[in-house]
């Protein structure tokens, strides 16, 4: 095939996904999809292998391939033109039950030539807790509807019995129906556009181009791996859930043009739903791998070929049925993301050519708060507070992390406007802003995180409920790099203004800081809580990791951070060794301060002692 035709077909495949994503967003009605971009559309070859990874949450690219393969196995001989299949079983392919995959075969002249697949986090899945994140579940059976594979659309016609059965098991069925419709529409557009592509270039040339595209990715990725040094890099993630402390341990080994991700030593599977299954861990490390190592390579099965994974069965990164997994996406999967980001970044740091591509961890906790209850229009409202997609950037080797700068696993994630959330839920924001001193200190500072506070507002029931799945409150999950510090941990506070009011205190209705709130601020991290009356919810997410020695940060940058309110003068002096006087850097005092801090370092014991 000539290079120009190959390139045109490659770009047409990208555009097929783009149009499908636009369609999905136009049809969907939920904030998590349209605002948070908690979605994914990708294309797969006839055997279910990844052909063209799309945007959205990247750990779904490979898991949806397993969904396609599972459907091929289960429905062999019964896969027809215009069919759409659904699977959301975490022990088959999905990350958790809330993330439904709809996969659709693409036929041409009666022959199966490819698959399209997409996912959204559906409005509800019938788990113990509305929205799907189910802290009280202790097994998969209480995490809602779960199917290893079912035909939802047959020959272009909706199977009403199947659809009605599913909708009969979920809350807000009209919204779940809209979620499913958005994915059917996205698959329809992908099918039509692929048909047009094949009509123009022919089935065999397109298939030839697809095969070449996968081979090209493998060739380019192996070449990149050969350019990087061989070695073995370790990372460790902790997360605290109630009475448990879990570890995810990763040793990444690179030899020649192959990479092995070994999670040996990770904690046994948890009693709580923060576990993840084998394919979720597999997808989990590809989320940082695709953008950090393959930013100029098509994301497809060719990238997967040089990779091996070791994940001990029965561990938090490869749990066995019926272990609960409803919070996997913010639990073990996120830690797999973070650990892989750290190991890959260390490998990049060891290369003169690629050191500039290294990054500290971004938004390591991926905190999630779901709200549920009746809204101000007496409609059932369920959904995530999209601030989690605001994230916090990790520092790079050449630049600060971006304040509230997103996250690596979802390059298009974003958060809704305050007004959008207030229009969806019966709540009022007291404040929302970037939080100073949360970014991990370093020569390049980690991005600061977000803090915000809510009260109920105009609720017909006097309030609403929320779900906190708060690992990362004790441990910093955004590790630093090259001497940079980890970002600050998360914090969640239930501010008991109702009790303060009952005790006769005047509740401050317009606080602009946590410290200005009247009631006692109780630390919370896990479970379902009420937001009633005058009580408030305060949330602070974790900052991005820093890069390099904080004492090497240019004093002028520290001054700029102070002036913009992103770093306090106290941290400037104690961590960065920068002393301010009359609004400017006191250069003599700063030099002396930094010399004193270095002297302190040289007085510490040898690590071997």
């Amino acid at each position, binding site marked *: 095939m000539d290079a120009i035709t190959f390139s045109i077909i490659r770009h047409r495949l990208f555009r097929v996904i783009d149009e499908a994503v636009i369609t999905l967003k136009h049809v969907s009605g939920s904030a998590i999809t349209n605002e948070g971009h908690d979605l994914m559309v990708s294309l797969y070859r006839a055997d279910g292998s990844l052909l063209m990874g799309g945007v959205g949450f990247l750990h779904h690219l490979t898991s949806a391939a397993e969904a396609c393969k599972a459907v091929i196995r289960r429905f062999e001989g019964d896969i027809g033109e215009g069919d759409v299949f659904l699977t959301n079983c975490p022990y088959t392919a999905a990350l958790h039950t809330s993330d439904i995959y709809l996969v659709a075969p693409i036929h041409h002249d009666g022959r199966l030539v490819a698959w399209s697949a997409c996912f959204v986090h559906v409005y509800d899945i019938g788990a113990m807790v509305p929205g799907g994140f189910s802290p009280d579940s202790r097994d998969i059976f209480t995490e809602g509807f779960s199917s290893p594979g079912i035909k939802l659309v047959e020959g272009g016609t909706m199977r009403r019995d199947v659809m009605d059965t599913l909708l009969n098991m979920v809350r807000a069925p009209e919204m779940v129906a809209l979620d499913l419709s958005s994915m059917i529409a996205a698959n329809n557009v992908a099918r039509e556009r692929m048909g047009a592509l094949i009509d123009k270039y022919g089935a065999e040339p397109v298939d030839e181009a697809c095969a070449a595209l996968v081979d090209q990715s493998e060739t380019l990725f192996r070449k990149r791996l050969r350019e990087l*040094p*061989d*070695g*073995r*890099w*370790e*990372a*460790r993630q*902790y997360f605290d859930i109630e009475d448990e*402390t879990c570890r995810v341990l990763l040793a990444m080994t690179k030899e020649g043009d192959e990479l092995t991700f070994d999670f040996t030593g990770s904690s046994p599977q948890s009693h709580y739903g923060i576990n993840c299954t084998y394919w979720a861990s597999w997808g989990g490390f590809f989320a940082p791998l695709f953008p950090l190592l393959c930013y100029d390579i098509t994301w497809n099965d060719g990238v997967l070929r040089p990779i091996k994974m070791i994940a001990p069965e029965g561990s938090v990164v490869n749990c066995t049925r019926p272990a609960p997994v409803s919070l996997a996406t913010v639990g073990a999967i996120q830690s797999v993301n973070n650990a892989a980001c750290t190991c890959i970044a*260390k490998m990049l*740091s*060891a*290369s*003169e050519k690629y*050191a500039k591509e290294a990054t500290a961890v971004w938004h390591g906790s991926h905190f999630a708060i779901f709200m549920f209850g009746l809204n101000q229009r007496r409609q059932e409202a369920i959904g995530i507070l999209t601030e989690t997609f605001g994230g916090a950037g990790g520092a790079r*080797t050449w630049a600060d992390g971006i304040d509230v700068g997103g996250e690596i696993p979802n390059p298009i994630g974003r958060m809704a406007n305050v007004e959008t959330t207030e229009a969806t839920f019966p709540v009022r924001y007291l404040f929302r802003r970037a*939080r*100073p*001193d*949360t970014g*991990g*200190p370093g020569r390049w500072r980690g991005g600061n995180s977000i803090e915000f506070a809510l009260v109920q507002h105009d609720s017909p029931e006097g309030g609403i409920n929320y779900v906190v799945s708060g690992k990362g*409150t*004790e*441990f*910093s999950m955004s*590790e*630093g*790099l*090259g*001497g*940079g*510090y*980890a970002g*600050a*941990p*998360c*914090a969640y506070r239930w501010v008991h203004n109702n009790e303060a009011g009952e005790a006769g205190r005047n509740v401050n209705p317009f606080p602009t800081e946590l410290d200005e709130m009247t009631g006692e601020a109780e*630390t919370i991290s896990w479970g379902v809580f009420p937001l009633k009356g005058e009580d408030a919810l305060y949330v*602070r997410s974790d*900052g991005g990791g820093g*890069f*390099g*020695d*904080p*004492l090497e940060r240019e004093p002028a940058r520290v001054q700029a951070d102070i002036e913009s309110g992103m770093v*306090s003068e*106290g*941290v400037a002096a104690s*961590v960065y060794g920068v002393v301010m006087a009359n609004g400017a850097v006191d250069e003599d005092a700063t030099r002396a301060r930094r010399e004193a801090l*270095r*002297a302190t*370092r*040289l007085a*510490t*014991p*040898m*690590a*071997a002692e």
Partner: protein
Amino acid sequence: MSGTRISATLVVNDDRTIACMACGHALGPAGEPWKKSARLDEGPMQGAGGAPYSNAERVLLRRFFCPGCGALLDTESALAGDPFLTDIVRV
């Protein structure tokens, strides 16, 4: 600083020793763990930054310094008793 880069802060010199990128202080043979040859400050993470770190009571921030110049070579989070993270680069 000459030598072959093996991290953001370390190189391997022609004599096959790992050295601080800033000052050249030797930290042991290439291909071996180097952290035990560094100076170590290990304290609660809650002292690492400002008020937002106050939750981090149990977790430790380990800071590995060059014994020659005091440069901060690496950091890691750890619970007490957990081993050092080991990175080996073959050059």
